[in-house]
C-alpha cells in the first residue's frame, strides 16, 4: 500500500468516525501527548505525521518566516491549502497547542487561530525531576478537566485505565516490528499505518507481524544496515526511498514515528498496582528518557542508547551498522545537538551521517549523493 492509498483509506475511516459522532483532536506528532486520555474521553487522537513539499512549505510563509522547521511549515501548509488527499483535516474539531519545541507552540497556535479550530493546551516541562513530574500531572489534570467540560461528564478512572491498557497492549505488539527481518520501507509503512489508526489497527497488525515472521521477505545481502535517529520520516516523505536507493536499509527507527512511541510501555507491575491512572501516564512520561524534548541529559542518554543498540546489533548480526541522524532543517532540538552527538559516537567508533534537509524537491540529488557516499564509506 503506498502513501496515497493509505491517506485515502484513512480519510474514509475518519469520515466514518465522524459520522458515528466521534470528535477529532489533532496535534503535532510528538511523543508526550497523552492519547490515552483523549481516547478514554471518546475522542479520536489524530497525530499530524505527514511530510511536506515545496508547495506546503511555501503556503506557510504568510504566517511564519521561511527559517522555521520544515515539518512545522508543512503542517501549516496542509491546513492552508488542504490538498485533496488531506481533506480529512477539515474534520478536526480541536487542536492541542503543546510545547515539544517552540515551533510546535507557534504552529499549533496558528492552526488553531487562523483555521478556526478550538484550542486545547498541553504543556510539557523540560526537565524530569520530582517537581516537573508533579507539574506534568497538573497538565494532565487540566487537560482531563477540559475534555470533561467538552463531553459534559466526568471521565472515570476505569475508563482511563481501560484506554491505558489498550494503548499499552498496542505498543507491545508494535514493538515487535523492531525485530522483524524486513526491509525498512516496509517496516515504516506498518509503523505509519499503526500510528495513524491507533489500537483499532491491532488485529491487522498482529496478522502482518505473524505473516512476516512466518514468511520473512527476502532482503538483499548488499544492503548496508543503518539506524535512523533524530527527526522522523513522516508519511509521504521519500527519505526512506533515498536511503534504500543508495543501498541502505533502516533496521531501527529511533524517532517519534518509531521506537520513541512504541517503547513507551508501562510495566505490568505498575499497571496492576493501585496507582491512579494519571500517575501511570506520569510514569510513562518519566520513562520516556530518550525523547529529544528533555534537558539536561538527552545527549548522554541518546549516545548510550545508540551505542548499546550498535554493540548488540554488530555482535548478534556480525554486520556493520551506520547511524543516520536525520535533521529536518531548522529543527531546534536535533540540529543543536547534532555536532555533539556525531563527535561522541564517532569517538566510540560509530560512523554518523548528519543529514540535514527540508522538503524541497531540489535537494533530492544532493541528499542521494551524501547518502551514497556515506554508505560507500561503510564498506
Amino acid at each position: 500500500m503506498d502513501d496515497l492509498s493509505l491517506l485515502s483509506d484513512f480519510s474514509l475511516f475518519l469520515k466514518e468516525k465522524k459520522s458515528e459522532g466521534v470528535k477529532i483532536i489533532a496535534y503535532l506528532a510528538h511523543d508526550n501527548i497523552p492519547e490515552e486520555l483523549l481516547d478514554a474521553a471518546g475522542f479520536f487522537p489524530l497525530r499530524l505525521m505527514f511530510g511536506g513539499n515545496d508547495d506546503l512549505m511555501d503556503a506557510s510563509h504568510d504566517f511564519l518566516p521561511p527559517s522555521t522547521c520544515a515539518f512545522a511549515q508543512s503542517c501549516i501548509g496542509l491546513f492552508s491549502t488542504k490538498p485533496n488527499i488531506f481533506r480529512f483535516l477539515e474534520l478536526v474539531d480541536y487542536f492541542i497547542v503543546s510545547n515539544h519545541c517552540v515551533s510546535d507552540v507557534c504552529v499549533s497556535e496558528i492552526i488553531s487561530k487562523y483555521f478556526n479550530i478550538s484550542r486545547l493546551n498541553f504543556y510539557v516541562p523540560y526537565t524530569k525531576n520530582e517537581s516537573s513530574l508533579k507539574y506534568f500531572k497538573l497538565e494532565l489534570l487540566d487537560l482531563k478537566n477540559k475534555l470533561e467540560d467538552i463531553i459534559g461528564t466526568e471521565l472515570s478512572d476505569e475508563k482511563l485505565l481501560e484506554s491505558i491498557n489498550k494503548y499499552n497492549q498496542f505498543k507491545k505488539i508494535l514493538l515487535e516490528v523492531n525485530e522483524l527481518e524486513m526491509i525498512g520501507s516496509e517496516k515504516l509503512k506498518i509503523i505509519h499505518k499503526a500510528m495513524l489508526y491507533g489500537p483499532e489497527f491491532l488485529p491487522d497488525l498482529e496478522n502482518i507481524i505473524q505473516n512476516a515472521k512466518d514468511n520473512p521477505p527476502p532482503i538483499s545481502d548488499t544492503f548496508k544496515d543503518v539506524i535512523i535517529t533524530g527527526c522522523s520520516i513522516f508519511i509521504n516523505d521519500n527519505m526512506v526511498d533515498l536511503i534504500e536507493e543508495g543501498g541502505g536499509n533502516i533496521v531501527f527507527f529511533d524517532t517519534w514515528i518509531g521506537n520513541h512511541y512504541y517503547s513507551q510501555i508501562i510495566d505490568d507491575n505498575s499497571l496492576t498496582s493501585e496507582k491512579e491512572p494519571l500517575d501511570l501516564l506520569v510514569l510513562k512520561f518519566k520513562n520516556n528518557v530518550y525523547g529529544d524534548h528533555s534537558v539536561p541529559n538527552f545527549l548522554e542518554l541518546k549516545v548510550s542508547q545508540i551505542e548499546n543498540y550498535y554493540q548488540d546489533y554488530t555482535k548478534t548480526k556480525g554486520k556493520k551498522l551506520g547511524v543516520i541522524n536525520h535533521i529536518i532543517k531548522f529543527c531546534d532540538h536535533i540540529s543543536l545537538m547534532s555536532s555533539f552527538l556525531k563527535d561522541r559516537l564517532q569517538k566510540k567508533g560509530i560512523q554518523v551521517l548528519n543529514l540535514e534537509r527540508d522538503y524541497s524537491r531540489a535537494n533530492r540529488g544532493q541528499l542521494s549523493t551524501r547518502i551514497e557516499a556515506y554508505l560507500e564509506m561503510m564498506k
Partner: protein
Amino acid sequence: MSLIADEIIQFSSVLRIAYNLLAGRNYLKRKKFREKEKLVAVTLPFSDLAFAADTIPVFPIRMHQFEINQYLTYLGSASSIFGWNTVSNFLGFVRNLGIEEVSKIVDEIIEDVIDVINKKYNEMYDIGIENGISSDFCYGLKSLVGMHVSKGSNVDACLNVTIRCSAYNKYLESLKAINQGPKQIWIDIPPRNIGNAIELLTDNVSNAIKDFEDLTGKTVTDNQLRDHFKIGNQVKRSYKNIIYDISSSDFYPCNPATFSEIMALLSITYQDYNSNATRYRDNIVSLEKEMRERIRKGIGMDVSDRPRIFVTPMFGGWEPKSHEIIYELGGRALYADWELLKLLEEIPTSPDSNPAEEYARFLMNATETGIGCDNDKLTDSYLRIAKDLNADGMVFFQLFGCHSVSNCYTMLREKVRSELEIPTTAITFNKIGESIDQMKTRLGAFMEMFK
C-alpha cells in the same frame, strides 16, 4: 558619532558602566584568583541567585579582553585615584575650553565602546559557527556558544534557567558538552501557572540555592536573598523610571541617538550587573539623577516633534545602527525589552516573606505575562509596552533563525493594526553590520509615514 560622544561625556555614570563592562576581565580575574570567588555564567537577566549566594555572575562575553581605547584605560586608572566624577568633570572642562585633540579623544572613546562590543559579539558569532553550531540558529545563540567555547572553561558554574525557546534550552544543555568542568545549576520554570505550579517552582528555586551552597560551601540565608533583591529592586526602579519617565517624555537630557545608545548599554549590562550589583545600582541610580538634573536645568533636547519608534526585540541580536538611522530620519528609538518581558518587576522583600517563593513568583510572572508561553501572550506584551510608551510606530527585528520571538510577527502586526493603529515594520537581521544599507532603505520608507 561626535554628537553622541558630546552628550555622553556629561554622564559620568555612563562612562562608569561602559568601563565596567569592557574592563570586566581584570575585575573577574581578581575575583577568581586573588579573592577565590566562584564565577557563574548567566544569560538573560537571571543573576539574582548568583549574587545572593555570594558568587560572581558573569555574562560570558565579559571574560574577554576588549580592545579598550587607551584613553578609557587611563580614565579608568585615574578614576580609581580621583573618582569618576572628578575625571568626568575634568574632561568636560577641557572639552569646553575647545581643545580639539581632547574632544577627538573623547569622541573616539565613546565610539570605541559601542564598536568594540559589537565587534566582539560578531567575533563570538564566528567562533560559535566554527565550533559546530549550525548557522541556521539565531545571532544570540551563535554568539552565546562562541562565548562559552572561548571562555566558558573559566567559570565554576552555569546558571541555566529554562524559557519558552526550545533552542535556548537545548543550548543550555549543550554547555556541559562544550566545557565539562563547570557545575550546571538548573531552574526549570513550569510553562503555565496552573495548580500548585508556584510551589513546584519554589522547590526548583530552593534546589538551585542548595546547588549554590554546594558550590561555595556557604549557606545562603533568607536575609542574603532579601538583601540582594532590595538592591535589584533599586536597579529596576531606576531602569523603569528612565524608560517611562524619561524615554517617553518630550524633553530628553541628551539627543535621542545618545539616549538610545545609553539604553542599549543598559540592556546589555543588566544581564549580570557588570558582575557587581551594588556598584551597578549606584551607577544606574546616579544615571537617573544626572538625567533628571539636566532636564530640570533645561539642558538637552526638545523631542516633542520626533515620533517615538519602539524598536524591539534587541536582546537576541539587533542592528545597533538602527537608532542612529532613526534619529537621522527624524525619529527617536525606544528600547525596553526587559520591561516588555516583565523582568523589571520588583521582588517583595518583607521580613515575613519567603524569598525563594517570591523569586519563584517573579519568574512565573515573567513567564506567564511577559515572555508568555505562547505568541498570543507574547504579542500582548508588545502591545502593552507600545501603549505604555505612547509609541507612534514599531520596528520589529525579525532574527534569522529565531523560532520563538520572530515567529510572532504576523500575529503582532495584526494586533498592532487593529488595537493600536500605528505603523509597524519588520527588519530581518542576521549579523551586526551585515545589511545596513537594506535596513536604511526600509527604515527610510517606514519613517516617511510620519511626515
